[in-house]
């Protein structure tokens, strides 16, 4: 990414970093420095994933899942939660990062308030969202009736509304983090590029589509992919906001897998629910790996 964003310090870097070959004590030190991570990786990544694959290896589990209406609705919910949630969040973050580039003092003050949802702990924040939505006594419905005289909805009593609430709460919590990252990307664009664009008559929306976006597009893509991986694994949002209800219709794969493994005491089935997302996750990881290799080759 740096090469795209014109990172000045990188250009001064000589080709060889330490020296071409390690020997003697340096090699020993390098291995010693890597040992803790290698231990974590083997003990807490390779072993659990291997164990999970072994637990979920029976094909009959997937046949059973496929006939399960709750699982099927959870697949649809997960795709919507990830697809809509990630894209709305990232696009919102991209636009708002432009707003937060402004140097007015009040914009900086708003930025402080804006990142609070990210700094607030997920459990407590989503409980609060749940209570805002519970019924006509929740804050949202009360505000609607007091200020507009509109009768509110039973937000968590229908599958689609509950899913929409989950997605909204998810965007609320995580958009600030990605806004900060994209803000960093925008700040790395040298002002001279904008000045040149202005001379060429690119202002307003044209400046965004022809100058800003092409320069942060790579970063935006990488963030979107990374965020996709993390969102598939998001547990707290659905668990606390809608609780998977009504009647398990707004479950996503993580909460349903948890429900089967612990509440229903069917660990194999629970792990199989989670593993069934792998065909979607693996391509994303491969794209990210190719990106990280490419960016390493550049430097």
């Amino acid at each position, binding site marked *: 990414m740096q090469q795209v964003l014109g990172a000045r310090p990188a250009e001064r870097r000589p080709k060889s970093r330490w020296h071409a070959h390690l020997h003697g004590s340096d090699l020993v030190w390098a291995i010693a420095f*890597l040992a803790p991570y290698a231990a974590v990786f083997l003990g807490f990544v390779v072993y659990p994933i291997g164990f999970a694959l072994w637990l979920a290896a029976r094909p009959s589990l997937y046949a059973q899942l496929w006939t399960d209406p709750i699982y099927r609705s959870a697949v649809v919910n997960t795709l919507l939660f990830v697809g809509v949630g990630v894209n709305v969040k990232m696009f919102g973050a991209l636009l708002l990062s432009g707003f937060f580039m402004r140097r007015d003092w009040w914009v900086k003050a708003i930025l402080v308030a804006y990142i609070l949802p990210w700094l607030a702990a997920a459990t407590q924040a989503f409980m609060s969202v749940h209570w805002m939505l519970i019924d006509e006594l929740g804050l949202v419905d009360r505000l609607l009736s007091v200020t507009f005289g509109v009768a509110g909805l039973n937000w968590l009593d229908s599958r689609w509304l509950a899913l929409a609430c989950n997605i909204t709460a998810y965007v609320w919590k995580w958009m600030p983090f990605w806004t900060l990252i994209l803000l960093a990307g925008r700040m790395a664009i040298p002002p001279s590029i904008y000045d040149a664009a202005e001379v060429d008559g690119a202002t307003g929306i044209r400046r965004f589509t022809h100058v800003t976006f092409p320069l942060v597009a790579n970063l935006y893509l990488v963030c979107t992919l990374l965020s996709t991986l993390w969102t598939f694994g998001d547990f707290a949002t659905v668990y606390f906001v809608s609780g998977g209800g009504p009647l398990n219709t707004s479950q996503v794969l993580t909460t349903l897998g948890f429900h089967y493994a612990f509440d229903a005491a069917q660990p194999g089935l629970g792990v199989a629910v989670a593993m069934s997302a792998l065909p979607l996750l693996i391509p994303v990881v491969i794209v990210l790996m190719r990106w*990280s290799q490419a960016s390493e080759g550049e430097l």
Partner: protein
Amino acid sequence: MSIAAPPMHPARRRFRPGRVLTEAGAVALGIGVLIWSLLPIYNVLLVAFDASEGTIEFSGNIWPAVPSLAGFWGALGEHARYLEHFWRQFANSVYIGVATMLLTLLIGSLASFAVGRMRLSRGGWLTNAALLTYTVPSSFLIFPFYKIMFDYGLEDNLGAVIATQVTFAVPFAILIMVQYGKLLPVELEEAARLDGASAPQIYWRIYLPLMTPALAIAAIYSLLLAWNDYLYQMVLLSSVRNVTLSMTQAELFGDTDPPWNAMMASAIIYILPPVALFFGLRRHIAASLTMGAVIG
């Protein structure tokens, strides 16, 4: 928060009607963002400052008629129901969070140094391994971890939770540090090597100080990961002495008639440490923001 000033666009102050419209739009957007961000937090404050413990309904008042600190005293004095062990549980949460943060920084920076700076081999495999960790999201592995912690003799042990949080925080720390390390000059390290400095000396005296901005980002990220976690704490911890504040709050959440004001007050107290860390580190975080795209 004073994130470093964005690039200046000099000399453009001519009055244009469009400009007034843009400013008005910006103010409206700002107000919208403010309401959007603060509404759930405002909801927490309303309940926390309520004098009675029984209400979470919005009474129609913008602010409690008689704001009260009863909820906070109930939590801090450990006499609200469920919160009899508030300080012990808070300490457990802090212990998990801080241990996760320090271990993540240590393991991540050592690995990034070995691969990125010592050039052990083509460094690509390290970031690949880091990304591979995210192939199976952490919450998908909760049941395997539940079983494995028994194998490791870590059942009902705070160390088990810390291990899982470190596992999922280190990959991001490595991605950040390897990328950030590419922006740093190597001349200092090469000069130190010529003077006979050993690898640990260079790591400690030169690499870590230069990496402060990336370390700040990894620190806040890993603390928040552990702070946000409820799933692993709930599954891996059980005995009274190991319960964390998140677990108690989820338990309160499941009750139909808990002391709401004390619960929300404890939620506010729980939110303070990451906020304090973020604002404590904001200068370093801003430095990494201006250095360039951090994770890109």
